[in-house]
């Protein structure tokens, strides 16, 4: 089974994904994979972002390369072997981030067409205002990537965050219908959200 988590930065999806992986580990083989975490491509992306060296096209392609590396190394062999794979962000993150940068959605979908469709995709929905408040409560500063610094270079981090994450949320809302996401209200307590996730996954496991 492949379970994907999507949502804007600060939505709490990474914590939810980890909690679900722990729960699934007690029921079988489970694996968690995170966006932008290929052993070798990740370093290149980090350097390139620091130097502001990516254009919308190379931003899109290099993240697809990172994804393909994790897909070919981990996701595909594990799913084929019967693991439960929990993916903290999946291809829909690329759909959202690339189109916000002006790349054609049809082309991005083609680029990722090799990837298997998740069994279920949870979209943890919060507004950018709530996400920002949470980030600030946690660690006080907004990272340039979260503020879409390459898209809105002129804005201060908090303004950039609200604007960039707002645009991403618009794309997610469209995708939610098109792709059949399970939309979860992320403004509830983490425990309430996790209970609903486990109930949904539990149904799939027994069905």
């Amino acid at each position, binding site marked *: 089974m492949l379970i994907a988590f999507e949502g804007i930065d600060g939505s709490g999806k990474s914590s939810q994904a980890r909690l679900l992986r722990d729960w699934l580990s007690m029921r079988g083989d489970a694996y968690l994979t995170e966006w932008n975490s290929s052993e*070798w491509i990740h370093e*290149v992306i980090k350097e390139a972002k620091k130097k502001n060296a990516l254009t919308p096209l*190379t931003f899109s*392609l290099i993240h697809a*390369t990172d994804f393909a*590396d994790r*897909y*070919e190394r981990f996701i595909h062999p594990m799913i084929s072997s019967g693991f439960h794979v929990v993916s903290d962000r999946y291809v829909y993150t690329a759909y959202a981030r690339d189109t916000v940068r002006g790349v054609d959605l049809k*082309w991005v979908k083609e680029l990722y067409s090799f990837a298997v469709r998740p069994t279920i995709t949870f979209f943890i929905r919060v507004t950018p205002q709530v996400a920002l408040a949470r980030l600030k409560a946690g660690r006080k500063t907004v990272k340039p990537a979260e503020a879409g610094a390459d898209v809105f270079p002129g804005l201060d981090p908090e303004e950039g965050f609200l604007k960039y994450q707002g645009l991403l949320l618009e794309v997610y809302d469209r995708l939610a219908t098109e792709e059949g996401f399970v939309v979860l209200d992320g403004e509830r307590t983490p425990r309430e959200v996790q209970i609903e996730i486990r109930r949904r996954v539990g149904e799939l496991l027994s069905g």
Partner: protein
Amino acid sequence: MSYLVGKIVAVEGVEGSGRTLHAEGIRTYLEEQGYGVITFGLGMSKLLGEAIARKKRDVVFQRRTLFLAYVTDLADQVENLVKPAVESGFVALADGYVLTLMAWGLTRGLERNWMEGVLRALPRPELTLALIAPPEEIMKRIIRKKGVLDPLSSGVDLCVNGDLYQGFRQYLERYLNNMRSLASDKGGVTVDTGRDFKVVQEEINSLVGGDLGEA
């Protein structure tokens, strides 16, 4: 040749086809005629060129990853080097471009439609030269240049078909068949460990005990 001003000329071909040498020749020829030329090509980007060279051996069986890494590598050069150069009237000479990459992918079973779709993002060359030569000649050139036939560029990965999972599965099927027939030829006992550990261990114990008993 003025039709090439502000355009891309692609020199395509496998390693040993004479790509780099002929690209250099074209560059000299065009420059002698007074044209400005820039050279780019597969594996030459600032963004990924060095990383690909370093990691290629580790990801040799991940065809899609390597394909996308090369597309990213070309796109980086197209956006940062080729576009500004052709806009100011240079000829952009590619030492390995989309056909070299597609032939590589097709030979390894990547879907043609998918590759064409992804590569739509790169500009089409005005002129494409696809270099071919007899295999014996290509291999002789590689030995002359490198001293050996590098298993990586000789397509050693082709003996494994499909993706990692299918490739490993096929390998295991062949290995297990060989093990089964060797065991039966040489008088070994085959034990299926695909069952519950305890059941298997009991069976093994009784086999061991049986042999000891007879001795």
